[in-house]
Structure formats: C-alpha cells, structure tokens
C-alpha cells in the first residue's frame, strides 16, 4: 500500500526511449493541497513523466500511485478526479470553445453549468462561440486550462501551462493557480523550465535534469541554498586557506579570496580572529547571494549552454 500522506507518489519511475533512460528512477512525492513546481530544462523528461502519471504512456519500470491507488490498476477511478493539460493544449479546431468543453463534459458527466464557469475563470466567455482553429496560442492555452478545470479535479496536472501566454495572461494564470488550493482544496502539479515562473506560487519543488530527480524539497530550502557562501577578501588566500584547514574549517580559495559555506555568526567571527592573529590582512567579509535562478542553472548543469 502506498503512503497515505501523499496524493501522488512515484517509485523508481523509469522510462526508456530509444535505448536510453529519458526518465530515470524518479521518486516524486506530492502532499495534499500543495502547489508542486516540477522544474527542469528542455528535454529533461518532464512531459514524459507527466504522461506516465496520467497513464498515457507505460513506465518501463517503477510505479505511480495517485490518491493511494495504482494508476495501472485503477486508472479510470483515479482520472475521474484529475484534470490535466499535457505539453500543448488539445482541442478540436472545427468546434467552438463551448462545443470543445461540451465534448469533454459529456465524457465526464458533470453539470452543464460548469462550462460557463470554467470559461469565465479563464476569461474566454466572449470568444466562446468562435471556432477554436481561429484562436491565438494564448487563447488555446486558456481553453486547455478550462478543460483541465472542467471536472472540478482534486489533482490538477499542468504541463507548462503558461506557454505562449503574454505577461498579463501569465499573471492571471498564476493568480488562478494560487487561489485554487485555498478555495477548493486542490493539489497542483505544475511543470516549467523557469524557476522564476513557479517560484512565487510553489510550496514545494522537484527539479529534474537529464531524467533524474536531483532535488525535491520546500522552496524555502532552495532559497536557503541561494545565499550559501561567506567570502573573505584576504592578502594571501592560499596561506589563509592552509591555516583554516589546519583548524578544521572547510574552505575554497582562488587568487583573490577565500570562501566557506554559509555558517553562523560565531564561526565567522572565529575565522576572522584566526586570520588576524596570524597577521593576515582581511579586506572584506561578505555573504554571497546567488540568485535562485543561478542555483537552478548550476544544479541542472545547463549554465552557459544558451
């Protein structure tokens, strides 16, 4: 039986495509009411993972449990309570937005009034009776989000939902997503290749790179990491480094400075005292604050690739 505290849990989820693992032993864990930011650069395996979560593709290895049930065994019961938008929005171009939603509504069996509700949530009411093939990308994206919301899901899986939206649209969707867990108790998995995009709404993040989950924890812990080092500008970094090492402090040095992991004030004071006692000149002591985005780039190893 799966751990009941998690709404969604994967164990060693693996997908091999063309001989190499595109998703490799991923263990996701998402709790009720969370907004989970699923981050990774292009080609990291986000969409492939999401496909397996929804039963659209079969894992090569590993398992997916949603609401405590195995997706392989109880797919239909699970999907009744899941709304999703995968990769790019799906639609029937020759139908209007209302008819598109009606086609899905008939399968879900929810009341007709939901169509008007979700259309107004994504602000498509005015355009609702026009054929979708004439929509802009952003409007199609909104329709996709409306479709995902139609069945009043308990779990919402959104794969890059702000793709193609203008800044105002992104802001709107962000506000909408933030409001859902509070007002409806919805749990949300939202994927993105930009940390900054989910940073303001996610309660937890999972970071995937080259198919492996390399980080999964609260966004706060990631922020902690972001200001992670104390730098000492000193006259002779190498000698200072040896000194610190001999006193049991882990440090790094380069031509101009010495740096240690972020630590408490007493340790910093002790280090400075040591240096001064040995006649090192200390020019400055500063905290290095890397941006979250930078941490993300370093972690995913895509720094400098663009």
């Amino acid at each position, binding site marked *: 039986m799966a751990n009941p505290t998690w709404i969604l849990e994967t164990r060693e989820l693996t997908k091999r495509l063309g001989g190499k693992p595109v998703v490799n032993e991923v263990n996701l864990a998402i709790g009720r009411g969370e907004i989970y930011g699923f981050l990774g650069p292009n080609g990291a395996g986000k969409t492939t993972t999401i*496909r397996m979560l*929804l*039963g*659209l*593709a*079969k894992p090569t290895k590993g398992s997916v449990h949603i609401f405590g049930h195995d997706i392989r065994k109880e797919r*239909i*019961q699970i*999907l*009744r309570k*899941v709304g*999703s938008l*995968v*990769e*790019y*929005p*799906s*639609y*029937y*171009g*020759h*139908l209007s937005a209302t*008819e598109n939603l*009606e*086609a*899905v509504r*008939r*399968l*879900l*069996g929810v009341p007709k009034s939901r169509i008007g509700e979700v259309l107004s949530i994504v602000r498509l009411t005015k355009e609702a009776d026009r054929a*979708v093939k004439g929509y802009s990308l952003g409007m199609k994206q909104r329709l996709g989000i409306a*479709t995902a919301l139609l069945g009043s899901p308990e779990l919402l899986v959104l794969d890059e939902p702000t793709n193609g939206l203008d800044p105002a649209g992104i802001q709107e969707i962000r506000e909408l997503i933030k409001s859902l867990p509070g007002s409806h108790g919805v749990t949300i998995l939202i994927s993105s290749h930009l940390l900054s995009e989910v940073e303001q709404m996610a309660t937890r993040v999972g970071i995937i790179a080259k198919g492996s989950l390399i980080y999964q924890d609260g966004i706060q812990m990631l922020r902690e990491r972001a200001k992670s080092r104390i730098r000492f500008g000193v006259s002779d970094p190498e000698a200072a480094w040896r000194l610190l090492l001999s006193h049991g402090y882990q440090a790094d040095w380069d031509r101009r400075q010495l740096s240690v992991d972020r630590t408490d004030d007493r340790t910093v004071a002790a280090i400075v005292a040591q240096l001064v006692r040995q006649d090192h000149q200390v020019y400055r002591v500063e905290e290095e604050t890397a941006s979250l985005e930078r941490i993300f780039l370093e972690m995913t190893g895509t720094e400098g690739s663009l």
Partner: protein
Amino acid sequence: MLRMFRSEWLKIRRSVMWLLIAVSPLIALAFGLFGFKQEGSFPWIEALSLLSALHAMLFLPLLTGIYAALLCRYEHAGGGWKMMLALPVSRTQVYFVKFAVLMLLLAATQLLLLAALLAVGWANGISSPVPWRTIFASLGGGWIACLPLAALQLFASVAFQSFAAPLAVNVICTLPNMLVVNSARVGPYYPWAQPMLAMLPREDYGFGAFNLSLETLTIVVLGSFCVFFAAGWTYFAKRSV
C-alpha cells in the same frame, strides 16, 4: 458508452462526412435515371445491379477508408487522443465507439443508396412488387462485407498521424478490384473486393469469385474481421500518446 457516442456525435456533427455520404448514392441515382431501361423480367434486380456496380466496386471501399481517416483526423490534429485518454474513459470503449460510428456512417450510405434505388424504380414506373429480401440481402451484405476493411482502415488511421497515408494505400488497393474478383482463389480474401462480392446480385455475375457460396464468403469476412479488429484494438490499447 452512450456518453461517448454523444461526445463523438458532437465532433462529427459539422463535418464534411455528411456531404460524402450522399456522393455515391447521388452518382448511382444519376446512373439509374439516365441509364436504366426496363427490359428484362426482373426490373428491380436489374436496377439494383446497375446502381450498385460502381458503388460496391469503388465507392464503398473508398468511403470506408475516408470515413475512418476523417474520424481519426481531428484526434491526431489537435491532440485529441491525448486529451480523451487522460479522461476517465477506457481505451477499449474509445476504440469500439470509433468503429461503431464508422459502421453507422457506412450504414447511412447504404440507406441512401436504397433511397436512390427506390427513386429510380418509381421514376421508371416499375410495376412489379419490390423484392425487399433481395435488396436487403444486397445492401446489408455489402455493409457486413465492409467489416474487415473498416477494421483494417481504422487500424491504419489510428496508427498513422498522417491523413493521406492510409487513404493512399486504400486507393491503391481498391483499384485492382475488377481484376481481383475474377479470381475465385484470391477474391474472397481481398478485403477491398468483399463488399462487391457480397453486394452484386449473384444471378447477373456468374464468374470468378462470384461462384463461391455465400457461406464461404461470410466465414471469410467474419474471420478476417475478427483478426483485423483485434489487431487494431490491441495496438490502440497499448500505444503511448
């Protein structure tokens, strides 16, 4: 199941398919109105032969492929498979409903051909009673003989993203029909020729595969239908979208 039919209905309600359904019966009607001469002692059967010749040899197999491709096109184009299969529906149901809709479209085509036949008979003032049994055996038989081809074409249309590929194959395979029916050995096993073998009145066609008993044809049709349908269905149930 019913809700899925209702959803499917919404998608095809405003499609070009409705125009296509009328094409073959209208051509047959024109043939009948201008080409039919009341000569023999079985005018209805002669009219039926005339109207169904081109229809059964060419249009019925072609339309089977076109309907199948159209039913899958809007799913391929806008990511419909992905959307539908992430909803609480079983893949088996999705596939069965697609197939059922395909067969219903073919049935509608056959009914329109019946209407064309009755119109020709009425216009020519055929006085003998309508031989309903023979007519229904022909139209119904032609419809049932579409089963294997429909299963094959739905399989191809589901498997290929492209709209044109399965259609091209269908056209190429339909064209040799006239030759294939001459062979008693190959004819009954050729899915594209089966509608013709089943539909044309046997009294008028005493050659090649037409000499086969109806039982043999029925067994071959139903047997190959089961094989093709099972293949398409298992493929659809397993595929990644």
